[in-house]
């Protein structure tokens, strides 16, 4: 089972206990095992040549000497990352005092980077942040430069193997891992649920019914994956090389799972929620737990106060069997646009934005979990409730590799199931429709 292999590896790399033992260099054999759930091509981490310090220094000196005009680079960072990225840009400028830089910092969310780059790659930023699931499409429109050489730090070995795998396509690395905390897990109110309750969804539902609270689940295929591709179901939704997706959710296990979700919803416990409604409901005490990711940590921590807690996705029962829920894990990567007029500087800047110090600083400024293993093992990072939960979730996670047709179909399905199948449609047919939509060419 590929997913198991990945899961094992993620445990190894991300979970805090194992970190000391496994961090740093991952040996070649385990790297070969890292596979994304993509079906056809192997996504094991590609090779990046790390120049020794002397060669690297002379290469950079050569570049500095040859740079006569002002280096104009546009950088895209998300709305929330603006101030922090600006400080990094200023620091980068200070590192090369003899070179004139003209940095333009633009706003572009990591999730929307693909649409913005694909609309016109030649007008896109020189250096930009994006979510790892967009990698293949960005490569297809020639929006990413291959990372074949590392100058200032060893990109391949300092980042977690799974993050490098997420930046790899056909054996080549195309981006620099920046964060490793994109994924979801459970936030809960510790005055309503105990840590033991949170192990099983069915137990949570029972307690929630008693106490008259709800459990929030977010809409959309990204979250629905947590139920359907749960460990032991034998389910998959895998990207193929032609951009389509294979998927087998419409078997008997799938029907059982769908019925289980519908039942949770009909019990009035499972409700659709987004981050802002969940925060309000947490504050009002009407919601006990919700699925979300690290981006909502501050909101929920404010809403829940001392009852703020987080843990991995629970197990749930469907058709008499118990399955461990999974989660999509994602990485934010920094890519370099091959259309850049100052390609070497763009690459050096991308290295700087993702190096260990920058990742630690990013965690401190923005509470974003690092992909750099050294940064991830720092004390400050380990103390964070949400980051700890996402690290633990690494043991039960999947790299997100699905085609474009996955989203609309799975979102429709999630809508229907979480609202309790309001029209009473035939569940098997719902799943058949969803699968045919997901697998459409």
């Amino acid at each position: 089972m590929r997913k198991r292999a990945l899961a094992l590896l993620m445990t190894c790399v991300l979970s805090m206990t194992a970190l000391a033992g496994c961090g740093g260099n991952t040996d070649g054999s385990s790297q070969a095992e890292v596979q994304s759930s993509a079906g056809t091509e192997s996504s094991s981490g590609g090779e990046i040549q790390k120049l020794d310090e002397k060669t690297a220094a002379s290469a950079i000196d050569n570049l500095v000497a040859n740079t006569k005009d002002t280096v104009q680079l546009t950088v895209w960072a998300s709305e929330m990352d603006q101030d922090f990225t600006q400080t990094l840009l200023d620091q980068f400028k200070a590192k090369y005092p003899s070179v004139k830089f003209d940095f333009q910092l633009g706003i572009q969310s990591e999730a929307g980077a693909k649409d913005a780059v694909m609309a016109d790659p030649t007008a896109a930023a020189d250096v930009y942040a994006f979510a790892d699931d967009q990698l293949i499409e960005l490569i297809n429109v020639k929006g990413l430069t291959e990372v074949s050489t590392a100058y200032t730090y060893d990109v391949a070995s300092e980042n977690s193997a799974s993050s490098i795998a997420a930046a790899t396509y056909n054996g080549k690395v195309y981006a620099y891992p920046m964060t490793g905390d994109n994924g979801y897990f459970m936030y809960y109110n510790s005055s309503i649920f105990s840590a033991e309750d949170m192990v099983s969804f069915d137990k949570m539902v029972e307690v929630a019914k008693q106490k008259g609270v709800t459990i929030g689940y977010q809409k959309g295929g990204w979250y629905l994956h947590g139920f359907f591709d749960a460990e032991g179901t034998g389910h998959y939704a895998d990207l193929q090389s032609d951009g389509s997706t294979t998927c087998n959710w419409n078997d008997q296990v799938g029907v059982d799972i769908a019925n289980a979700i519908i039942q949770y919803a009909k019990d009035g416990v499972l409700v659709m929620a987004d981050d802002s409604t969940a925060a309000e409901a947490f504050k009002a005490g009407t919601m006990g737990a919700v699925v979300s990711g690290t981006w909502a940590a501050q909101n929920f921590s404010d809403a829940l106060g001392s009852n703020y807690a987080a843990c991995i996705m629970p197990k749930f029962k469907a058709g008499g069997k118990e399955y461990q829920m999974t989660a999509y894990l994602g990485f934010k990567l920094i890519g370099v646009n091959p259309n850049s007029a100052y390609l070497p500087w763009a690459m050096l800047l991308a290295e700087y934005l993702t190096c260990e110090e920058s990742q630690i600083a990013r965690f401190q400024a923005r509470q974003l979990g690092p992909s750099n293993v050294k940064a991830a093992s720092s004390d400050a990072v380990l103390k964070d409730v949400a980051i700890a939960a996402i690290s633990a979730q690494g043991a039960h996670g999947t790299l997100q590799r699905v085609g474009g047709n996955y989203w609309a179909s799975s979102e429709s399905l999630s809508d229907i199931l979480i609202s309790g199948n309001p029209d009473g449609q035939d569940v098997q047919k719902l799943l058949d429709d969803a699968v045919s939509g997901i697998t459409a060419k």
Partner: protein
Amino acid sequence: MMDQMEKSGDGIRIQKMGMSQKRRIGGVCKTVLLFILACIWLIPILWLLVTAFSAYPGMSRTRFFPEKWTLDNFNRLFFHPDSILQYGRWFFNTLVIALFTCIVSSIFVLMVSYSLSCMRFPGRQGIIRFSMILGMFPGALSMIAVYFIMKSIGLTNSHIGMVVVYSAGSGLGYLIVKGFMDTVPASMREAAKIEGANEFKIFTRVMLPLCRPIIVYTVISTFLGPWSDFMFARLMLNSGLSKDWTVAIGLYNMLDKSLIGQNFSAFCAGGLVISIPIAILFAIMQKYYVEGVTSGSTKG
């Protein structure tokens, strides 16, 4: 102007003799109905207004009126810009783009209208028919081609480019103005011609002064177009640099999923501010607006 409307109302007032009491009851019913309708129309606007003064940054689902009132949102918009929220810049950009578009477009429209309404030359019919068909082409589709054409002449991400995009095709929007000019008696032009004026003089000295109401209408509508446009701006200003944005893109961006929790009341404040110039324009020029629209459409 309203007096004029009052009088005109008489024309359609459906009068019945006698039964003043019945009439009074009818008046009360109508007023009540109007009151209800006005409420429906104003509730969202009221929501915008009160939320703009809310101390809670996100969108509350439980309270219509804010818990705490504050002016901080406006303060933030104008005096504490950050890399995302640069409302002052956006407002300035939008104003500059809209003003220049308004000048160029108005001139274009008047030029085209005059030549098609007051002059006779071979091919005039063809131009009218051709332009009517051309105007049917959906703007949403041509946007992408427009983008690449502008890019190949280096005018994307530039405010000059925005003015070009908004105003270049404006000549096609001549119908209403032409309709108005058609109603100006030809004898006035003839008289000027006999006095030895050329067409240029007739255009500037005779026609333009007569067209004041429709010019006001044209100026307002060509100003409002870019002032509240969203799609073209989003397509053309794609560098992601907040300082280049217009208010529309900036406000839309503030309601991005990850930002709505911190920005909803600021969005409302921003929406309120952008509405003020429009409200003032409408208030001053409502008369011309109505006259312009109706004369153009009645006589077009």
